């Protein structure tokens, strides 16, 4: 009797084991856009390429899209197009997939306006694909003062900048701190970064380094509305003269950068679980982002 009951339940249980549950979705050969607009700076170029198969050796020039029609629209607050900037394929053959706004014959190239929306549109004639992405440019900000122009590595006081507040509608500001070394020599590497760099690696890999996106909530806002930002020693890869930049980024860059970093691990996802990047590109992928920045020079002496 027990065996009959057992059989009655075991059989359905085994039938459940029919097949695995993995669903495999093919990756389309999407268009990849890349462009970074900077508040109050001239319109920046756009680069177009396509996704490549993971198993193939990759060369950007082979993936570049060289025959697209590219334009950037400045949008009015109601979403209508206020001005259209038609880009052209950059003529230099050393710049595959590169499109820029022609400045020849113009006295003052158009500058990217803060707190305005820009929309990128790229049409691919061969396939009829139309790729779009829109960015809202963060407000500009400025340096009020710096405490020092020369600091000694890992000694107080550290380099500190007092800046006015930028604004970004609907959320707090998100910063990225970037340092660019004027003399990126191996002898100038700080100990922490020297450990990371292989002997065969080119030291220029570390010429420009950046923090992950950091929220304004990390910093105390002064009574006058300014913010004091201290340069973390982690951001210093080289002794010597550095260009230290503070960048306030838009949503597109924020999503792209934070998700691209997760692809290399370190998040709450399990090891081996890799998500796609969060892009804000319609019918394609990549990033069409914008940011505002200030840059200060600082000299870092050895300990």
């Amino acid at each position, binding site marked *: 009797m027990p065996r009959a009951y057992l059989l009655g339940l075991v059989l359905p249980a085994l039938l459940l084991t029919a097949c695995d549950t993995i669903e495999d*979705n093919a990756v389309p050969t999407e268009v990849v856009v890349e462009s970074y607009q900077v508040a109050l700076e001239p319109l920046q170029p756009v680069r177009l390429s396509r996704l490549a198969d993971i198993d193939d050796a990759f060369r950007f020039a082979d993936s570049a899209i060289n025959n697209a029609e590219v334009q950037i629209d400045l949008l009015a607050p109601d979403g209508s197009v206020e001005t259209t900037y038609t880009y052209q394929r950059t003529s230099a053959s050393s710049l595959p997939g590169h499109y820029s706004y022609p400045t020849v014959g113009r006295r003052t190239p158009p500058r990217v306006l803060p707190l305005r929306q820009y929309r990128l549109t790229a049409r691919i004639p061969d396939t009829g694909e139309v790729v779009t992405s829109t960015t809202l440019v963060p407000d500009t900000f400025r340096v009020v003062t710096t405490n020092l122009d020369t600091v000694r590595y890992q000694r107080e006081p550290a380099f500190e900048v007092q800046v006015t507040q930028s604004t970004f509608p609907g959320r707090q500001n998100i910063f990225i701190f970037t340092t660019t070394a004027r003399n990126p020599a191996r002898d100038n590497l700080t100990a922490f970064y020297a450990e990371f760099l292989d002997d065969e690696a080119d030291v220029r890999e570390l010429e420009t380094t950046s923090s992950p996106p950091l929220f304004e909530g990390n910093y105390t806002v002064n009574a006058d509305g300014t913010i004091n930002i201290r340069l973390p020693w*982690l951001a210093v890869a080289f002794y010597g003269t550095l260009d230290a930049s503070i960048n306030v980024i838009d949503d597109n860059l924020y999503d792209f950068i934070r998700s691209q970093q997760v692809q290399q691990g370190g998040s709450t996802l399990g090891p081996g679980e*890799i998500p796609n990047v969060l892009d804000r590109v319609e019918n394609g992928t990549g990033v069409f982002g914008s940011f505002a920045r200030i840059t200060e020079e600082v000299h870092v002496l050895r300990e």
Partner: protein
Amino acid sequence: MNRYVLAVLAACLVSLPLHAQDRASLSGFVRDVTNGETLILANVFVQELGTGAATNTAGYYTLPNLPAGTYTLTITYIGFREQRMTVTLEANETRRLDIDLVPDSVLIDEVVVTAEEQTREEVKRIGVAQISTEQIKQLPTVLEPDVFRSLQFLPGVKAASDFSSGLYIRGGGPDQTLILLDRTSVYNPTHFFGFFSTFNPDAIKDVRLYKGGYPAAYGGRLGSVVDIYNKDGNRVQRDGSLSLGLLASRALIEGPFSRGSYMLAIRRSTLEPLLAALDGQDGVPNSFYFYDINGKVNFDASANDKLSLSFYAGTDDVNVEPIDDTTFDFTYGNRTVSANWTHLFSERLFSNFTMTASRYFSDPVGSFAETEFERLNRVYDTSIKGDLEFIPNRKHAISGGFWVGNFVMRLQDRFDGQDTLGERIRSLYGSAYIQDQYQPTPQWTVTAGLRSTFFSEGDYFRLEPRLSVEHRPTEAVRIQAGYGRYYQFLTLITSQVFSAFDVWLTTDEGVPPAYGDQFVFGVKTALTPSVNVDVEGYYRTMEELFELDPFLPDAAGLDYNQLFHFGDGFAYGSEVLLEKTDGRLNGFLGYTFGVTKRRFPNLNDGLFYIPKYDRTHDLSLVANYDLASNWRFTAAFQYGTGQAYTEPEGRFRLTDNPFTSVSTDVLVTSFNNRRLPDYHRLDVGFSRLGRFFGFADYELQLQVINVYSRRNVWFFFYEFSDQFAEDPLNAQSTVEVTEVPQIPFPIPNISLTLRF
């Protein structure tokens, strides 16, 4: 709820016998004769009436409303010799009958003659699994015997990897399992970066796992409950043990005193000599230790009043400098204390009241180039709980209780000397339950319960109905089905790699509790007195799951609800357990078919995906064979479908990124679209018992993990070549795949235990 209570009371009144005053009753504790430890869920069966009762968590049973007469009682408990006794009850007699059972192991040299083969009556509730502490100690282990590692052999229970003792039960993550030690919640009970759990098997009396459909007496988690009870301490004689292992050593002392007993178990790592020998080598910690202490004192204030005080303290501390100018300093651990009062109002009304306090702390600090990162997490949970069991007659067993407490969670981030996040959530919580186990005939048992839960932070009040039905068409067959609604007010942030970073977060305004329904059904059979086959199926939903947003790079200045992403999921599966409990060859074979999926808006385009710990097929075999009276061989084999992982299908490269000197390479793929190669591993062990120079019993264990060097893959790591090039537009780049294995080679283990 009121209507339900009235219905239960009405049912009780209707079924009360008209001449209850003529009836007798039998009640008492069931204990281990060798040490006086009470036995949980032992069965006391009245042969003539075809009915019985199980002991509760205090080891107490009640058989009310027995007609006057002479009865044959059969008392059974796994690992103990069945005991039969005859009892004659007079009308109106209230008999207190404490019963002592003899462990099987005590009879090992005796010839046991059984007059007839009879099915052993065991308490087998739906969704419940049990593993004995003896089995836990016998299973081959990496370095230390471990409760959770042993549970991972049971059907429906999976591990994330060889390196994790976390319990993934029926498609749920580790935070979906409530872990109780002497009725006290324990948070992040791991040692050695999560490699094994903190529960010292020397100190443990009983481990019971409610895999699903758990009763109304428990709550607060979507999935399951691990209910662990420490030993009370030997009430017969003072004894002790000392165990020397490769990683840690353990000591236990227990014994009786006037009207009571005590137990103290200490375990500490013994890695210092190894660390000293490896001093100066890359990645070797400057210091590392862990310890745990379990203690319990019992005092019988009267025949009807038992008091106990138990505590646990465990800490892991590691300091390591993996590279120059970089240090990691991790300290994490738990403290719990509980005071318990068991009181018998009458033979029919049993009560238990407990005051508990639990503290979890985690202080990981990393310093990179003198830039410090710190994430401090604290959980303080203090509570009072009471449970009452009322047995009005043989058809009803009514239980009810409450659990009220104060929960405080603190999360503080510091970056470069500045506080960047400071969350402190204090919430009062309370829950109450009532349950009636109704047995209209010996063949049918219906258990209906209702639990209500309140969490003050966010003003969440929830009702959780529970229902289970058992039908016994024959003595050897139980057909069971159950349903329950469950709520969870906590979530665990874990890296699945290293438990020192584990952080607990709670619901709050804008972060509602997760909830889910569970449907469970099963058949449990006894093919022979010592061979059981259990089959269970389950389906469960998971709604409003809240987990830390994996894409969140920083939390400063965010509203609390912005820390999370919200999703849902489901799981279903079936489990088969073939178990042989007695004989020279014993053990179990378990098989699980399981599916679990999750859905979060920012992962896999918002479609359902398979989490890493999903395993379609899972097979485990645990076998013990007594080679001789003092030699035992143990083998444990596991097979599982490879875990899901993401194999990228496409890539692209950004060459103009203004925030870096190197190209930005991006993978494109659907999420968790492939499976790793199947997992399998065989562990074996030998143990020898004997006398140690005439002053102690010894047990020598020799074990080998991963006997045949199976190189199970943990995950693949993808790296791009040539991210920096003079001419990034024309440089060739490939994606290099690195296979990261789990334990890839045989690991021997040796331990010596002396028992005084």
